[in-house]
């Protein structure tokens, strides 16, 4: 069962299907109901599922997420939207001190089945406060799951999995991907924590997630012209990340580059690099290299942002470095 549509519509479809499948699923967030969402990811849901289950909230990020925790503790499966990932800075207490810990600190009495959807990433010249990739913060917090789908199919099935998951999930969308077109498979198996081999190869591994997948693909295409077959591992899940898949690929290629849009220093790639470098110490023929954003806030100007974002050039150069 497959039909082509946009990433943003795959999100809407997953939300709608999840609401149809489970009456405890509800949505709330700023302008998600009447207006169908600032990026139209919730378009039509108010009409289909009614004003009790699809609600516009005031501009109160901290309490939107806190209310999701309270609702999740008492019988609902809320999906809330934070309009830009930068704004999660206003809601960290609810995510980290409440949602992530409730099950553990209450002795396993309960679960907190909620999803926080939020778009990260640049490419829209939205500037320093509307473009950040902050997933590393959440990956560091026990009790949370973090996922970042790169394809239309994954946008659907990973969102369905996130909503079905018993524990809180930070579901990171990349706003530059909203217009991406692709095929949907609503019956694809759904799960937590599995990466996807996006492209097989034997000379080097590129581990990536989110929109950087497309830079990795472009890089792999160019490398292929030079006879280098790069294997691309699309992580999908950042917490937990798929050690098995990553390690298997690296054990095969012995060379690895980790690429993501977030700031490189203390980013998601650091953990993965550290684990590969220690656990596969004897397998590596070259240092684990990382490609991420430089250590500066993401700038507004088109020219600056273009220079800032990790791209295929940098991935190609890094892969070549590991082969040198």
């Amino acid at each position, binding site marked *: 069962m497959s039909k082509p549509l946009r990433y943003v519509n795959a999100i809407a479809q997953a939300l709608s299907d999840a609401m149809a499948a489970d009456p405890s699923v509800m949505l709330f967030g700023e302008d998600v109901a009447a207006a169908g969402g600032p990026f139209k990811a919730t378009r039509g849901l108010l009409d289909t599922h009614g004003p009790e289950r699809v609600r516009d909230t005031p501009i109160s990020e901290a309490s939107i997420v*806190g*209310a999701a925790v*309270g609702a999740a503790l008492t019988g*609902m499966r809320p999906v809330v939207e934070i309009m830009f990932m930068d704004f999660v800075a206003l809601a960290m207490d609810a995510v980290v001190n409440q949602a992530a810990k409730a*099950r553990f600190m209450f002795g396993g009495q309960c679960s907190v089945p909620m999803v926080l959807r939020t778009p990260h990433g640049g490419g829209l010249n939205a500037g320093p406060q509307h473009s950040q990739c902050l997933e590393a913060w959440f990956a560091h917090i026990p009790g949370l799951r973090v996922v970042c789908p790169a394809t239309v199919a994954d946008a659907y099935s990973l969102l369905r999995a996130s909503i079905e998951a018993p524990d809180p999930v930070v579901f990171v969308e990349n706003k530059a991907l909203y217009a991406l077109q692709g095929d949907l498979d609503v019956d694809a198996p759904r799960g937590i924590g599995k990466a996807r081999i996006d492209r097989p190869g034997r000379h080097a591994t590129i581990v990536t997630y989110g929109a950087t997948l497309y830079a990795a693909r472009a890089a792999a295409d160019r490398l292929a012209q030079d006879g280098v077959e790069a294997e691309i591992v699309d992580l999908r899940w950042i917490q937990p990340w798929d050690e098995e898949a990553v390690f298997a690929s690296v054990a095969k290629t012995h060379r690895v580059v980790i690429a993501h849009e977030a700031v490189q220093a203390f980013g998601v790639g650091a953990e993965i690099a550290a684990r590969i470098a220690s656990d596969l110490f004897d397998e590596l023929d070259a240092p684990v290299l990382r490609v991420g954003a430089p250590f500066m806030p993401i700038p507004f100007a088109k020219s600056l942002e273009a220079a800032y974002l990790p791209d295929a050039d940098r991935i190609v150069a890094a892969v070549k470095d590991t082969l040198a």
Partner: protein
Amino acid sequence: MPSSAPRNDPFPPDRLLALHRTMQLIRATETTLSKLFADSEIPGFIHLSVGQEAVAAGVIGALAPQDTFATTHRGHGHVLARGVALDLFFKEIMGRAGGICGGRGGSMHVADLTLGVLGANGIVGAGLPLATGSALAHQTRRSGGVAVAFFGDGAMAEGALHECLNMAALWRLPMVFVCENNGWSEFSPTSRQFAATLDKLGAAFGIPHRQVDGNDLAAVAQAATEVVEAARSDGPRILECITTRWHGHFEGDPQRYRNADEIAGLPENDPLRRSAEALLAAGIEEQDLAALVASVDSDIAVALEAARADALPDFDAAFRDVYTPTTLTAGA
């Protein structure tokens, strides 16, 4: 301070006696914990609610089984009033395996989801959005339930109050905001912490506010009953209980910042003494009250013994509870 609304339907003595027993249970438990803490039998830090028992007994007594509440760092009383198993409670505070939270949370995180207790909370003000969300769940599920958010006067300064008053008002949530106003925010008096008053804030959001003498059990019980039922049928309410904190902010706090007169005057407002007097006046016998004290003490002794005998928590078991088991982790 009298209740701001007229008291039409005073609680009958037998109902008050049951609530009085709840107060006695809280008082005796807190006093026991104070000793245990001084004797280093309790790790971490604990915030006791001695002096505030009437709020817990009166408000929790007004709740229906399906109702839910989120409480604060000073939450023992609420949880005890709701009927948490006493041994599981002691085990938790003392960090034992059989604690209601497996010894992982301690005093600041006592919770019992089976009783609709969304937990004490170490983050001031954090219970407000939790209760708001729970009220939203009640409304959406048409559960008929009400959610209560307990918060202190100090917590009023957190933006969460404003955000949640607004959401509750916009959505007419079945929710009661219960302020336990004990005049202190740690070591600072409310007057230096908060420039507004809760009644005026309520008025700004169109949420009816009611203030009650939080040391008058019958008054709290009466007001809480009315307010909870009003919230159930008509949307959010605020109940402000003026009460008194007897102990330090946490155990071990010498309270140097409080003047001697204030401390000396505390017993005068003792909610237990006041309710005992009222009960006696209403015909309850001295010996019934004495029996009640003895029965509470014996319950506590049993629970404490069980807690002391309980094993220490198992690390691996704790580790397994970070996430909920699910077949999804084997998926796709």
